[in-house]
């Protein structure tokens, strides 16, 4: 790890966003992860996405569990709310926070251990409930903090740094999220920020459960020949179905691209996503199609990346529960407890 603080000087020509912030204003503490960790690139991508969306840092809650990935919220959005919870329990803490204050933007940051092993159940239920959040899994296929044992997302047949072959089947979190009804599902790669940054920006703008699986090579334990989550392997097997641009507050301009290849998705936050198709047959609005596409390509050893599924008209948990627009944590006592007369009325209606 680096012992000095990142110098506060920044490039004198840095652009400012609508709030007057540079991207440096969205940073947190300096990373204590190993040099070259893919997670740091995801951190940089979250910073970039929040900067581009001109998000007010105090409107974000970043919640994580335990693991290398779950340390990263300390390294971005230093002026936001944060909760570093128990291992695998990020989803329930996030769900609770979201129920209490629906006005914040929720970033759930987790890893393959935190979400595919100890927190697999929590992951599943937060997705199926449609909690309005951006759930990012920083997926490196190993337990880095305990020196590189295979995690539940390690591909069967892939090799550890010591040469041991993994005999267990892998959990594909993207496939599970699709099956559980996530309304925004994407996969990306920490080494490809041009794809990852707009995906995060689009996920933040999506109302409902957004899930992004980001393959993030572990430099220390999982970046060797035989790994299926190394820089080289992912670059060789990456099959991007689309590229997207998030258009903040303006109409899409599609003159640069051949006609017919751009698909515009209107987002809940008013921004638009311009999807540039790479695979002409791929339809990101077809959940069933996405599932088969994913399975077919996984069998061929390809890693499908891009925006795999989006439902622009999704509903979230608050709509399912029919809660009030006002965040619950700001309701006054007389609203929360309207008195015995109202209780009598309710009781009477149930008799």
């Amino acid at each position, binding site marked *: *790890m*680096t*012992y*000095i*603080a*990142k*110098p*506060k*000087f*920044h*490039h*004198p*020509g*840095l652009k400012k966003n609508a709030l007057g912030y540079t991207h*440096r204003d969205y940073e947190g503490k*300096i*990373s204590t992860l*190993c*040099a*070259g*960790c*893919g997670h*740091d*690139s995801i*951190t*940089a991508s979250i910073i970039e996405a929040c900067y581009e969306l001109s998000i007010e840092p105090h409107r974000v809650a970043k919640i994580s569990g335990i693991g290398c990935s779950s340390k990263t919220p300390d390294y971005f959005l230093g002026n936001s709310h944060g909760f570093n919870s128990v291992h695998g329990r990020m989803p329930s803490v996030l769900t609770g926070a979201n129920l209490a204050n629906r006005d914040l933007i929720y970033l759930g940051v987790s890893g393959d251990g935190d979400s595919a092993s100890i927190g697999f159940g929590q992951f599943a239920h937060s997705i199926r409930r449609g909690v309005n959040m951006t759930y990012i899994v920083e997926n490196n296929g190993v337990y880095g903090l305990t020196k590189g044992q295979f995690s539940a997302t390690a591909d069967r047949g892939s090799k550890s740094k010591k040469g041991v072959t993994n005999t267990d089947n892998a959990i594909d979190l993207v496939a599970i999220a699709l099956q559980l009804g996530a309304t925004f599902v994407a996969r990306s790669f*920490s*080494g490809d*920020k041009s794809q990852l940054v707009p995906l995060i920006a689009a996920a933040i703008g999506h109302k409902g459960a957004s899930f992004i699986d980001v393959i993030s*090579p572990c*430099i220390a334990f999982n*970046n060797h020949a035989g790994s299926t989550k190394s*820089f*080289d392997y992912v*670059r060789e097997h990456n099959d991007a179905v689309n590229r997207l641009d998030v258009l903040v507050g303006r109409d899409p301009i599609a003159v640069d691209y051949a006609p017919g290849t751009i698909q515009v998705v209107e987002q809940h936050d008013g921004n638009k996503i311009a999807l540039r198709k790479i695979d002409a047959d791929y339809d990101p609005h077809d959940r069933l199609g996405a599932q088969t596409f994913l399975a077919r390509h996984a069998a061929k050893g390809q890693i499908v990346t891009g925006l795999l599924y989006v439902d622009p008209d999704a509903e979230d948990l608050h709509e399912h529960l029919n809660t009030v627009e006002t965040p619950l944590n700001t309701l006054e006592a007389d609203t929360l407890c309207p008195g015995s007369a109202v209780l009598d009325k309710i009781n009477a209606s149930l008799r």
Partner: protein
Amino acid sequence: MKPTDIAAPDYFHKVVDCQWACPAHTPVPEYIRLIAQGRYSDAYMINWKSNVFPGILGRTCDRPCEPACRRGRVEDNPVAICRLKRVAADFKDDIKQRLPKPAPKNGKRVALVGGGPASLTVARDLAPLGYHCTVFDADPEAGGMMRTQIPKFRLPNSVIDEETGYILGLGVDFKGGHRIDSMKALLAEKYDAIFVGSGAPRGRELDIPGRKEAAANIHIGIEWLANVSFGHIDKIGKRVIVLGGGNTAMDCCRTARRLGGESVKVIVRSGFEEMKASPWEKEDAIHEDIPILNYMVPVAFKHVAGKLIGVTFQKVKAEYDANGRRNLVPSGEPDETITCDDVLVAVGQENAFPWIEPDCGIEFDKWHMPKVDPKTFVSTNPKVFFGGDAAFGPKNIIWAVAHGHDAALSIHRMLSGEAIDERPLPEVQISSQKMGIHEWSYDNDISNDKRFKVPHRDKVIALKDIRAEVELGYDVKLALGEAHRCLNCDVQTVFSTSLCIECDACADICPMDCITFTGNGEEGDLRQRLKAPSPHSDQDLYVSSDLKTGRVMVKDEDVCLHCGLCAERCPTGAWDMQKYFIEMTYAGSTCPTKSRSAA
């Protein structure tokens, strides 16, 4: 773009902006690090080798390094490089044992005309090689303009004595009070080489009505300063006008304040901003209650019965023509007469070579300047060399030193039977600073401190004594703080393409967004595609060869802090921090020439 050739000595030299801008190419960051370590003598010797007069320059240098300093592009003010040089001089131990020993004479005789910085630099370089150097000066003591034109409250005699003494102690023959009146006679003495470092000794006249009639109270700036320096003049009228906007004008007005001038004004033709004086010298003058009035052109000296009573000025304004050239045109306001008792004219200096006869083989151009080769400093007479203000007109001490080094190299090569236009390459060393995984042998933790002010003597006391030095210099604590502001630009970021796995860690951590991984292209196109804008195209782009993904690494050297975080966060050591040290070629350097190394 083609991959950057970092083996070319100039590439990394340019990154060290201060050193590149210095005419003598003093290794600035290296000596600042030594100051931070308390190794003042070592810092002094690095300076002594390169710029010969660290104590003098640490007080008086025109500091071309400071406007170039990268820190000035990152925050408000550059590192106080000049004043740190003085720190090395102030706090050093006795360094006499470290100076070269007088060498056995090699039988070759070199005459040096003028005892100023250019000639003394030539003598410093040649004497240790065994040349018999004889310096002639009209003044009794060595130093030239450093002694006569710079007021003692900026540069005490003790510093001049010490640093000229180091050179004369190398076995140099100094003939003080010996003015050279004839080049012909000098040539007849059969010296093996002659170096002319006689400066620009003539102050420019201001020929306007009343000049002759009121002559008793109108003084030429540099002559007046010299007379003050030698004690021939010790008072001036209460009301003084200084005409001119250069550093000599600043020295004149501040000197006048100390000799009885109660109301001293500097009046310049141009605007305040375009004045030639360095900003800090203007500041010092204003601090001593000297107003600077601008856009006023002197048109007449007013006098009554042979006594000066004032100066009449025409008011002008600046107008810019289609080519952006500035013209001063009358503003239409009525002329203004400002009363005064004395006027100091500091409107420029000129070269004067009345002592060089036309048949010496030395040709002059239409501006009456000798024809001098800008690389070798040889005149049209192959045995006669020029340097300092005598070569290309008035500049400043550090340029004179740089000329002196180059002229000495030419003289040494000529007298060794080598071609003088063939210049040996400088010697370059580059070495990794890595000490541990995240440890470097330099301090990479960037200081956020603003520039520290140099303490000044109390104004009331300073104005009473013309020999009381105004600047007191940094103390050890301030010097340490200021030294930490240096960004160590000589510790270079060196990139190895073959080791890079394109993990983006360096681009993510770089506090200045200097590093971009992108497709290659022409320079203009690449500069458009960097992570941060690239406003200074004079700052190079460091471009790698093609990486595995077909992209290249592009680093804009412009505002790199040399904090080493790219190298700390690099998992494969593709980035390394390596200290670059360039030793310029001096007379007697043994580095092989380009042609020899190719053979």
